[in-house]
């Protein structure tokens, strides 16, 4: 198994820089997920690591060796593609054998290896089927098997589950996690699906426009987003934001004045910020509490009942909408007036430049 290190990696295509200096180190056995909106450069970054795209500048180290100019086949990596990219004219066995054969492995050894992997992935009955005769999930497993037989130092996955239907995707997600635990291989996984990122990753790298927005464990990203972008990107339904005026702060927290004049005391530090500055308050829908009366009231505009939970969209007096996630059995109806409670410990404050204020206390699960 191996470590991967990216040092100020850059990629320029024609005149446009699409990867703007990414540094990152991936530990042995770690499951790292690159996540971000489409066009953020996550696939390009993965392909640069694979060797399918040239690196314009910076260093890529695998196990401490610089591999910028090493052929993709010689980097000791294996990749699972979004379209699976199985060779259609070869059966499952030959698909898995192709890389081993090119590497000059003896026939008996190849056979033993392929049979072992096929057993692990329950592909034994299909070894002599062509990819065209297999279902989506089976093709997916063949693609993973083709990667495993090569015994790579690092596994690369490029949105491998996006072609599967929702039920199968959930199942393959669990299988992939289990497989990673069993093989203990360093894995880099690209996805735009935050559920995949949250459930599988040891470490998530959030990318936007070729820049790393934040690197951290899934719960670190959830509880302590570094900036507005990460706060908005992680979590579903997305975090509510509204503006407020910064009043002042100390070691115990910062005070902000909300639009309706009430004051909120949030346990975050605010070094060097002048009172009177406009800041953004963020709170996740699942943390807002609903009350029938009190301050901070608004009118319910839409109710989405999902069974276990209910999403209540509340129109505030200043025109902004705040989404509240609450119990599935809540009786509130549209057009009624409700009051919202914002627990200060779950609020986030963002400075005008979008960066989050440091929390006074780290969440125990995100230490």
């Amino acid at each position: 198994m191996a470590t991967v290190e990216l040092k100020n990696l850059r990629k320029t295509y024609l005149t446009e820089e699409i990867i703007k200096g990414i540094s990152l180190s991936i530990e042995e056995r770690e499951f790292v997920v690159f996540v971000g909106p489409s066009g953020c450069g996550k696939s390009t970054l993965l392909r640069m690591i694979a060797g399918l795209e040239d690196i314009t500048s910076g260093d890529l180290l695998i196990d401490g060796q610089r591999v910028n100019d090493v052929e993709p086949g010689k980097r000791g990596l294996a990749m699972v593609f979004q379209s699976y990219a199985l060779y259609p004219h070869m059966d499952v066995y030959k698909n898995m054998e192709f890389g081993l054969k090119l590497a000059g492995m003896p026939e008996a050894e190849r056979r033993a290896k392929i049979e072992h992997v096929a057993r692990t992935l329950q592909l034994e009955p299909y070894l002599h089927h062509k990819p065209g005769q297999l279902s989506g999930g089976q093709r997916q497993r063949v693609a993973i098997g083709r990667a495993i037989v090569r015994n790579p130092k690092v596994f690369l996955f490029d949105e491998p589950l996006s072609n599967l239907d929702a039920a199968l995707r959930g199942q393959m997600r669990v299988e992939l996690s289990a497989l990673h635990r069993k093989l203990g291989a360093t894995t880099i996984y690209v996805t735009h699906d935050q559920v995949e990122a949250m459930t599988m990753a040891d470490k998530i790298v959030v990318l936007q426009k070729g820049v790393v927005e934040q690197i951290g464990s899934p719960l670190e990203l959830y509880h302590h987003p570094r900036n507005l972008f990460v706060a908005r990107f992680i979590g579903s339904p997305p975090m509510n934001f509204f503006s407020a005026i910064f009043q002042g702060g100390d070691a115990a927290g910062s005070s902000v004045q909300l639009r309706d004049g009430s004051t909120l005391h949030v346990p975050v530090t605010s070094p060097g910020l002048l009172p009177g500055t406009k800041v953004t308050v963020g709170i996740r829908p699942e943390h807002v509490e609903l009350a029938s009366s009190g301050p901070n009231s608004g009118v319910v505009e839409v109710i989405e009942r999902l069974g276990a939970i209910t999403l209540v969209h509340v129109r505030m007096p200043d025109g902004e909408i705040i989404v509240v996630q609450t119990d599935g059995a809540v009786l509130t109806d549209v057009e009624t007036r409700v009051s919202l409670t914002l627990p200060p410990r779950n609020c986030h404050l963002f400075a005008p430049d979008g960066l989050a204020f440091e929390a006074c206390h780290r969440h125990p699960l995100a230490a």
Partner: protein
Amino acid sequence: MQAVFEHSPPAGATARSTKRTGFLLLSPSVLILLVWSIVPLVMTLWYSVQNYNLVDPTLHGFAGIDNYWYLLTDPDFLHALLNTFVLVAGVLLISVGGGTLLAVLYDQEFFGRGIARIMVISPFFIMPTVSALLWKNLMLHPIYGVYSAMMRAVGLTPIDWLARFPLMTVMMIVAWEWLPFAVLILLTAVQSLDGEQREAARMDGAGPIARFRYIILPHLGRAISVVVMIETIYLLTIFAEISVTTAGGPGVASTNLPYLIYSRALLQFDVGGASAGGVVAIVIANIVAIFLVRAVARNLEA
């Protein structure tokens, strides 16, 4: 049509009457096709068993299998048959082999690729007679030809290609005409190859040659068989290039079956003998077609 009829009940009077209407509607086109193909065939069959010479009206009447006997025992016929197959096989080899390599080449990114693609396709748009004349007089002529000038420039004696290597030269001219067709079909086939498959092969450690051998060539299988089938049908009937350049000569060195039939009918005015040759050509074309269609159908199924 099919979609309309799908909704009608499958059995009973309605089905029978729709079937009859269908036959009625189809019959004019079927009739025209029958007349179009059957009448010439029957006439050829009829003439092939007749003594019929355009310049000798005294010679007429039923000939039995005499026309066939003369044809099949004529050494020129065997020669022409052999030439036909050499021509077809040679042109196929050059155009499909060269076409595959060019298709892979033109799939790469390089400066001026658009213009290069148009230029490699352009010979296909030139009429066979024109391209044969171009090669004969402009390129290969022993005195005025471009190649002769090039050979003289480096101190070599020009070769009279059409006299020394008539069949090979005709083959080259025809291959030049058909190479663009192969490139066109194979290039679109190469372009339809999934980019991720090539990348997967690269990740598997396959170099350019291994990728060509194990990924691109199998992907091109169908397109190649289609090119072979279409080209074979046309190549069996090459005529204009031979007529314009060598007129089948010297002797019968570049005579193929179509040209032999032409010379029997319109140079020797032996309609009976030429018709016998035509019937033999039909039989050969059908044998080839059966094998080809089978091979291609098997390839297309996979």
